[in-house]
């Protein structure tokens, strides 16, 4: 409201033209506003903030559910409608942690075992990738060495590594962890290296004039300066890892949300597959949000 009113007041006084792009944008907005006001016949009032933050997402979800129900109806029962899925979900989440043998466990166990694989694979990737990132970022030669390898291997789908994992470990579980390790490794190395390279020379000069020990330089300057970049690396890695684990588990079997999807497909329980899709989405969202919070905690500006 305020901004619009202000701009309106400014327009007649505009003697020297502002930046052309800004002017164009402003004019376009003004033109749109005039058109809007003309067509509706009353002055536009902005919807209150809560309406936008609460209502808009709800409307979006409702539209989504509506479309889904429509498609389900057209599909003639092959795809379950939202209500059916809702009831199935209520049943599944009523007892998420049951265990009837290795191939029949509650959805909670499946999600947890997927998360465990991601956690281990990812933790190993951090252990290897962060120090490597520091080395690559700090030494030109190491960076030259790493560049072609990373450039070549980064675009490879992590799943392409699965056969090698199976060959090396001769078991499904470590192979899945290994795939997560490989796909998390590149973002960790690259982002840490970028973080190290962008450390302002000023900070390093401070370290030099104060004659700080190597340990102090690392703990008080390098590490905190690189931390936000590392967290970005972690965020990207976890996102990719969560995408990849589902596919990897479909291929390897065992307990895990990806395997669960595959199992339910074999049982032709489509509503369970849809529940799994939502569960995967929500867990991914929560991981992302947790890391955004972490990143906020460690940003200094």
């Amino acid at each position, binding site marked *: 409201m305020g901004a619009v009113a202000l701009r309106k007041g400014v327009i007649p006084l505009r003697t020297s033209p502002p930046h052309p792009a800004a002017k164009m944008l402003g004019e376009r907005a003004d033109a749109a506003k005039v058109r809007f006001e003309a067509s509706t016949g009353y002055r536009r009032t902005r919807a209150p903030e809560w309406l936008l933050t609460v209502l808009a997402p709800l409307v979006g979800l409702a539209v989504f559910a509506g479309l889904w129900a429509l498609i389900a109806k057209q599909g003639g029962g092959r795809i379950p409608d939202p209500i059916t899925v809702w009831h199935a979900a209520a049943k599944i989440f009523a007892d998420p942690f049951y265990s009837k043998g290795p191939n029949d466990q509650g959805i909670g166990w499946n999600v947890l075992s997927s998360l465990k694989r991601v956690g281990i694979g990812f933790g190993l990737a951090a252990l290897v990738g962060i120090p490597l990132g520091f080395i690559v970022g700090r030494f030109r030669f190491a960076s030259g060495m790493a560049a072609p390898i990373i450039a070549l291997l980064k675009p490879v789908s992590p799943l392409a590594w699965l056969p090698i994992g199976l060959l090396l470990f001769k078991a499904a579980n470590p192979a899945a962890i290994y795939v997560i390790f490989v796909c998390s490794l590149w973002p960790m190395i690259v982002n840490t290296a970028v973080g190290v390279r962008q450390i302002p020379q000023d900070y390093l000069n401070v370290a030099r004039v*104060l*004659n700080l020990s190597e340990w102090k330089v690392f703990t*008080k300057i390098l590490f905190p300066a690189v931390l936000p970049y590392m967290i970005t690396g972690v965020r990207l890695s976890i996102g990719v890892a969560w995408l990849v684990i589902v596919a990897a588990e479909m291929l390897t079997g065992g307990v895990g949300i990806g395997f669960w999807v595959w199992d339910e497909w074999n049982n032709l329980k489509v509503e369970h597959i849809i529940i799994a899709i939502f569960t995967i989405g929500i867990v991914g969202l929560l991981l992302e949000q947790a890391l955004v919070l972490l990143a906020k905690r460690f940003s200094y500006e």
Partner: protein
Amino acid sequence: MNRYVSIESVGKTFETKKGDFVALAGIDLQIAKGEFVSLIGHSGCGKSTLLNLVAGLIKPTGGTILLAGKHIGGPGTDRGVVFQNHSLLPWLTCFENVHLAVERVFESDRKQRTHAALELVGLSHAEHKYPHEISGGMKQRVGIARALAIEPKVLLLDEPFGALDALTRATLQDELMRIVATTGATVLLVTHDVDEAVLLSDRVVMMTNGPAATIGQVLAVDLPRPRARLALAHDPRFMELRASVLEFLYEKQAQKKLKVA
């Protein structure tokens, strides 16, 4: 003359992609203990380069620099540096920034020394704030406190007040004069500001334009201390000194620039 800092026929040539660039040539300057010397010159003439040479952040390609008779081989805590852009570490509070310097130099009373340094610049109340929570002038003061806290033999300041508004700058200049008077520090100050140079210094060193910049003229400022900003504003001697620095900068050195252009 008491040669506490002795810069002896120092030159600095940078290797660049377009070949060698001679930034400084034949610099000779002696600074006495407790003396306040300003370096003034046009932008890009090599003031920061000379200061960084004394700080030990870069090495001269010719000549030597001595501090208290000893050759300067690199950076050291016998020199306190205040950088042009404060260079505080954003993840440490003001207290921690200063403490980082103190703990490198002193074994005992580290906390007390940190408090004392911050008190000297009038920032006791902001000790536990982070750099982004305080104003530009306050950041620069923390930078000064950090440099002073290690009780250096020489204080090196690179345009410490350059980024500040005129009022804050005046306050900090007065503060610096007070601090230097109480600590008896030896100071080398890089500045663009003619008034600042004359007000604060015992000698103003005027540099010629680069490349191969050198010392063009040295002006002794014989104004008695303590100096009061307001009284000096009408002091004929102050005006005279100021005029001769301006003359150097805008006649002798500006002409060269025009001929080149």
